[in-house]
């Protein structure tokens, strides 16, 4: 068995008659369409296995009808699975007796809905306290806890309003507050921000990411918006026709799409925004090692002229970045006849970029810095350089 907060193994859902027979036929290689035509059964989810790590935001993507909404409802068992297992903290939810399932839902999981699904006759506060009320928490405590979560989503001043008096974005904040109030370790979000306009959607994504910073929860997020998926997802799972066809980090999916179906998702996206420094870097800048003895300025100057380069980097013996120097400055030093060693005080100090930084975080520094920018890996060792020319070439390729 795989490990993880949520582990889904060989999960199936068949709607209609002959559930078990349909699964047997699927395993024998019958297609979805054939089973529908000959047995009248609709395959909702077919042999899905994946796991979600503690504290991870896992985004499920797919076209409508691909089974993503069904899949998440199998996880909290709003829909009964036809076959397969769903382990949450090692406990098999698919086989749980009903009373324990209710207990689990009250205690440790909650859900956010596309249409917000607030109760129109309850105030914002009573909506936020709904889960606590169901779990039998006393009025005073649940009102306090509801207020606390409303404050987290910035709605404490609207506590006594009714849902219809709030805008869509605010209503979904209430939906989010309701999900947070029970303090669950996992939240299922079904197209939670899809009904909002793009600006509000971004704002809600920020609210969610901010909440994750203070308290990491395991989140399964269904979306059909690839930008959203890449923005908030630690990993993305792509669904097609009830099957989970690929799982990976956003970058892995961009780099190695398993099929044209997956690639099509990313076609409309400006993927360059998700390029990282590691992917942009190159060995374009001559490198000199300061091994106790600084490199000689004259030699560096001649090398650069021969190579038709304008900058050089100096690293120490451990490959830690020490600084950069331009041909212009070197020429100045050498012309004066001072064939000196390139000690640290002669070098330009630049804070290097790290490999995992995405383009939108580093582009300003790339533009502002006169020469190429050094890139270091996660341990701080020099890994390469990004010049403006290199950046433009890569952007054109994308």
């Amino acid at each position, binding site marked *: 068995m795989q490990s993880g907060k949520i582990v889904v193994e060989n999960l199936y859902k068949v709607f209609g008659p002959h559930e078990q027979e349909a699964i047997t036929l699927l395993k024998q290689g019958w297609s979805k369409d054939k089973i529908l035509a000959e047995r009248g059964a609709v395959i909702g989810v077919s042999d899905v296995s994946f796991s979600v790590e503690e504290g991870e935001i896992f985004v499920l993507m797919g076209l409508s009808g691909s089974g993503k909404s069904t899949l998440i409802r199998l996880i909290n068992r709003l829909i009964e699975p036809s076959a397969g297992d769903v382990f949450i903290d090692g406990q098999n939810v698919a086989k749980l007796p009903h009373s324990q399932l209710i207990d689990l*839902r009250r205690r440790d*999981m909650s859900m956010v809905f596309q249409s917000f699904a607030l109760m129109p006759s309850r105030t914002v506060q009573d909506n936020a306290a709904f889960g606590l009320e169901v779990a039998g928490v006393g009025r005073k405590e649940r009102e306090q806890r509801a207020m606390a979560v409303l404050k987290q989503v910035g709605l404490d001043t609207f506590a006594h309003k009714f849902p219809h008096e709030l805008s869509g974005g605010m209503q979904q904040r209430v939906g989010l507050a309701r999900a947070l109030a029970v303090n669950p370790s996992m939240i299922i979000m079904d197209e939670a921000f899809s009904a909002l306009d793009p600006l509000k959607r971004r704002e809600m994504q920020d609210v969610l990411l901010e909440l994750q910073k203070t308290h990491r929860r395991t989140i399964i997020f269904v979306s059909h918006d690839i930008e959203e998926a890449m923005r908030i997802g630690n990993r993305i799972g792509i669904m097609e026709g009830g099957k989970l066809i690929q799982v990976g980090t956003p970058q892995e999916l961009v780099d190695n799409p398993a099929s044209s179906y997956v690639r099509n998702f990313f076609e409309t996206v400006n993927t360059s925004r998700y390029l990282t420094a590691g992917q942009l870097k190159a060995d374009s800048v001559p490198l000199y090692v300061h091994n106790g003895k600084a490199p000689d300025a004259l030699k560096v100057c001649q090398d650069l002229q021969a190579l038709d380069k304008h900058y050089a980097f100096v690293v120490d013996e451990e490959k830690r970045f020490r600084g950069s120097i331009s041909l212009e400055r070197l020429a100045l030093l050498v012309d004066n006849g001072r064939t000196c060693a390139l000690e640290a005080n002669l070098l330009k100090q630049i804070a290097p970029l790290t490999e995992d930084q995405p383009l939108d975080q580093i582009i300003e520094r790339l533009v502002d810095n006169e020469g190429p920018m050094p890139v270091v890996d996660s341990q701080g060792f020099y890994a390469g350089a990004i010049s403006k020319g290199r950046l433009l070439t890569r952007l054109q390729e994308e």
Partner: protein
Amino acid sequence: MSKELDLGSWVNDVVQHLLENYSGAFDSLGSVVSGFSEGIEALLMLPPAWLLIALFVGLGLWRIGARFAAFTAVSFVLIVLTGFWEQTVVTLGLTFSATLISLLLGIPLGIWSARSERVAMITRPILDFMQTMPAFVYLIPAAMLFGLGRVPGIIATVIFAMPPAVRLTNLGIRQVNKEIVEAGQSFGCNSRQLLFKVQLPNAMPSIMAGVNQTIMMALSMVIIASMVGAGGLGNDVLASIQRLDIGLGFESGMAVVLLAIILDRITESFGTTRQVTHKTTWYSWVSAKLKLQRQ
């Protein structure tokens, strides 16, 4: 007209059989219904006419507005002046008792049929039958089983007026937004919590529409039920037909119409505006009205 199949005589036999073997059960059921409706009528008779009128006018003012309150006041004064007040209160009592019994039976049945396809399938044709069978037809077996008076009238009225309560409760619960129901389930509602915290509150507009329909149908039926001696305004309507007294028919018919309008608007207001307005407490309402008048 020759008959190949004599359904009618079978029904006669069934009623005869019931009468011969279960008259004790019908008698005790009858006395329960009779006691219940007499209690309600006594309750309505208890306050003086002006107080009951003031109560309705106040209700109209709270739920709908000043113009409707004025209409209510004028209507009731008109009824009092034409001398139909007492009969109107009797009719009101009959309507209320029949409505309460209908709701007491109809709403749970509606809930049950919303939760079970089989119950829904069985109740549907029965409700069709109850609703479309000409209302007079119930009066005959009811009178045979329960004797003349208010009881057969109420029983026949309950049969006639209950279907909308069942139907609209069922419909209201089934029409609750699917995601709201899922929200209830996903936060761990058990089946009782789902019903009382999610389904019924969200089905309220539809259920109130059912209550409104039931009241209106009950009112129309208790008039007809005067044929078996149920009393109230129906007696005057019946008398006007028998005596061809157009004036009496107009006066008593007018009282029925005014009562119907008042009951309809007031009960309708509970179905439509409850969700939109804030929780109006009586004191916040009074203070708001007072402020308005000072301006």
